[in-house]
């Protein structure tokens, strides 16, 4: 799907460019492509319409006509607006002056509330709080038991009673106050928003426990119906925020935009896996990228981090940049990277890809990668370290051993040498950049700089992050958010409501 929007827009760009002047109709055509992309991403129909109306009024035909890539300009405008809407008015989690701070979770069946409750407890604990989990889902078989087990893993106590959900919730808050737990997280049963009785029940829970935060927990793969659900829960409970779950899947997650637009409350957390630590702050730029089908490189990095051995990555990188990257290194990296999934899929998620790389990613058949791996494995360790010694008879042997041809072996060795040359060039800073990689490196380095101490970047990369990436400097402001300030981690200026 990554290709679809980008290449369709490329085509529009080309024809727009050739014509020299952009008309309203040309713009509409580009917006039509984006409409389809947003709908495919499960953004709700009315939300798509109003969102694009906003874009349309914002796009200046004059400006676009001057641009070499008007199609891309439009996408950029859309991306920026998405980031703005998704990240607008982020929630600042503050704590009640009189503890406990009560957090109420509500949502449909199967959204991931119980898992989210445990993850929140873990998160609060990491913030130095002492949370209590309240198991008020008495409907789903073994829901209480599930929360008990998760609570045990998190090192957080779990409160419940064999009475009714309202009584459990109220009792839980009282218990938290009694034993001095300063955060109280109430898990409730999944319920249909049209189930009168159950919606009344959760309203009662809310009225009796006066939560400081009420979060709707919603699945990232939810379709058009998300808006119905969100509206009804919001009407009933006056939500403070939304937790989007299962973002480790490949759902585009248009629900985030729909719910944000219709309910007007921020997305607070992103749940990205089944383990207790898999709760992230919500990053609007990642979500925007994902909704537009343009991949989510930061999630890729997260996944890579989890799968790849950090020490191996570090030493390999040093060797790459130092120009001593060998076929052995390549082989070990290849198998690590392949563990993460198909290489074509991975490549598609990289930003800064040019046309040829995208086409190549499309055509990438993992069998070809198998073949490459076979060739390298058929080489002796000495041959891998020093490919110069690979003469004719050795090539023949390698070809036979890997089930390939001498021509293919030759090709691999030639390309690899080319690659080593490029890397040495990159390391010395005097690039010809690897084709397609330049933009990516810069972007990644900037991303890295924004999230952490730029002085920790390897020197060859630090320069890419821009002049502000010097030790002690603040990360550069992100003009695209429209807030004019620096990008904060999950932000926070809105005080919670106190009842």
């Amino acid at each position, binding site marked *: 799907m990554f290709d679809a929007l980008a290449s369709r827009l490329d085509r529009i760009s080309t024809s727009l460019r050739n014509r020299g002047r952009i008309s309203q109709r040309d713009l509409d055509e580009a917006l039509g492509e984006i409409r389809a992309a947003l709908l495919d991403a499960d953004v709700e129909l009315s939300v798509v319409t109003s969102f694009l109306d906003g874009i349309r009024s914002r796009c200046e035909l004059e400006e676009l006509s001057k641009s070499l890539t008007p199609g891309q300009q439009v996408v950029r405008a859309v991306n920026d607006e998405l980031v703005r809407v998704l990240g607008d008015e982020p929630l600042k989690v503050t704590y009640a002056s009189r503890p406990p701070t009560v957090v109420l979770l509500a949502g449909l069946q199967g959204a991931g509330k119980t898992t989210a409750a445990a993850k929140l407890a873990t998160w609060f604990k990491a913030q130095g709080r002492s949370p209590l989990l309240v198991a008020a889902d008495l409907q789903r078989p073994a829901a209480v*038991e599930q929360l008990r087990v998760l609570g045990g893993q998190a090192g957080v106590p779990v409160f419940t009673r064999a009475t009714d959900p309202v009584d459990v919730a109220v009792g839980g808050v009282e218990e938290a106050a009694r034993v001095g737990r300063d955060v109280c997280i109430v898990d409730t049963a999944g319920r249909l928003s049209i189930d009168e009785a159950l919606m009344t029940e959760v309203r009662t829970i809310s009225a009796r426990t006066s939560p400081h935060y009420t979060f709707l927990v919603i699945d990232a*793969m939810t379709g*058009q119906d998300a808006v119905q*659900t969100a509206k009804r829960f919001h009407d009933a409970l006056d939500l403070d925020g939304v937790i989007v779950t299962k973002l480790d899947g490949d759902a585009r997650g248009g629900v985030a935009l729909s719910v944000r637009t219709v309910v007007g409350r921020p997305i607070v957390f992103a749940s990205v896996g089944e383990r207790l*630590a898999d709760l992230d702050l919500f990053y609007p730029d990642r979500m925007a990228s994902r909704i537009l089908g343009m991949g989510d490189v930061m999630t890729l990095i997260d996944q890579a981090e989890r799968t790849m051995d950090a020490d191996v990555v570090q030493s390999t990188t040093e060797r*790459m940049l130092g120009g001593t990257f060998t076929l052995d290194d390549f082989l070990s990296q290849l198998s690590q990277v392949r563990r*993460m999934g198909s290489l074509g899929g991975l490549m598609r998620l990289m930003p800064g890809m040019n046309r040829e790389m995208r086409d190549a990613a499309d055509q990438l058949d993992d069998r070809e990668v198998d073949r490459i791996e076979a060739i390298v494995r058929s080489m002796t360790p000495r041959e891998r370290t020093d490919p110069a010694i690979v003469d004719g008879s050795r090539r023949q042997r390698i070809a036979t051993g890997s089930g390939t041809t001498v021509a293919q072996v030759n090709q691999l060795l030639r390309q690899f040498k080319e690659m080593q040359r490029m890397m040495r060039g990159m390391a010395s800073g005097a690039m010809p950049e690897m084709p397609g990689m330049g933009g990516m*490196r810069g972007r990644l380095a900037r991303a890295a700089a924004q*999230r952490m101490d730029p002085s*920790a970047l390897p020197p060859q990369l630090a320069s890419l992050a821009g002049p502000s990436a010097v030790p002690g400097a603040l990360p550069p402001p992100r003009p695209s958010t429209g807030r004019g300030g620096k990008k904060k981690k999950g932000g926070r200026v809105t005080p919670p409501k106190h009842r």
Partner: protein
Amino acid sequence: MSHLLLWIIIGVAAVVLATATVGLVRVRRGRALEATRRDALAPPEPRAVEAPPSDAAAEARAATAPPAPAGVPEAPPAPVEAPTPSLATRLGAARSLFDRVRALRGRRTVGDEDLAAVEEALLRADVGTATTAAVLEAITAQARADGLGDDGVPGALRRELLGLLGPPPAPLTTKVEADRVAVWLVVGVNGVGKTTTIGKLANAEVAQHPVLLAAADTFRAAAADQLATWAARVGCELVRADEGADPGAVVHDALHRARSRSIPLVLADTAGRLHNKQSLLEELKKVRRVADRDPGQVAEVLLVLDATTGQNAIAQAREFSDAVGVTGIVLTKLDGTARGGVVLAVQRELGIPVRLVGVGEHLDDLVAFDPEAFVDALLGE
């Protein structure tokens, strides 16, 4: 190929560099691995199939016969459903999305406004852009060729949707080779209702013959407890293991217990898993292999889909089917406000039929899929 090779090498290097650039300098958040599972990277959403030109309807009709489960001869029907009210009645809470469409009744031609109304209605029901385009194309083509019937656009739309869905599906089968235990494997992503569905399935089957439940979800906290509750409600046996045990081993044990107690059917629950996680799909393939080995034989692989799911359902259906061969879909939570229209796209693009529909959290809230009732409810009749 020559450039491709270079891109492969670059690709690998790029990924490594990317990880190094951001990953190395990131302050480690101290994530401990609680389980032994490794998550695979998410591949991008597969391209939706472009709508085929004008003969979409005919092609779709030809492609809708539900596939017979591998290796199992056609069996006399073993009805699953208990007598229940009609689907439309159960979905009484549904509101009509299609008032504008209904107002078009009686018109023999198709104008832009009509198409817009139909498009909006279908998109809101999660039918998706590709299948919606195909349906609109088919209606327009029909209007051009023969004109529409007296029932105008709504009638044509209804016929088109029914054509996509095909005939009512065959009931689930327990017919396997002699001396083997039939296995129904229940799969799907997290939170869709697999365990609850198994409870309902067991309830329906136990009236005819003994059933054994296999708690092969060994990952989720208290998953086996959850299934045990259903087993107790239904009155059937359960095979379980400790958390973290091998799911294949649970299935294996269940098969042998079923064989020794002459229980003809095993319902195997599996852990919810996102379809973009390679290692988890591999695990599922392994579970299926175990289930298909003597004394077991897989008779049905049921993919549970949540009716609130949007276009991602197509990717789910594709990946699970590629991995373990899905014989049918159970569409759950249709008692809510979601219409579940994405199953039209799944049928059209992948040929996987809906066999059953879940309409609540109680034991008897499972009905056979009735295409006419489904389309009527979709169109708000």
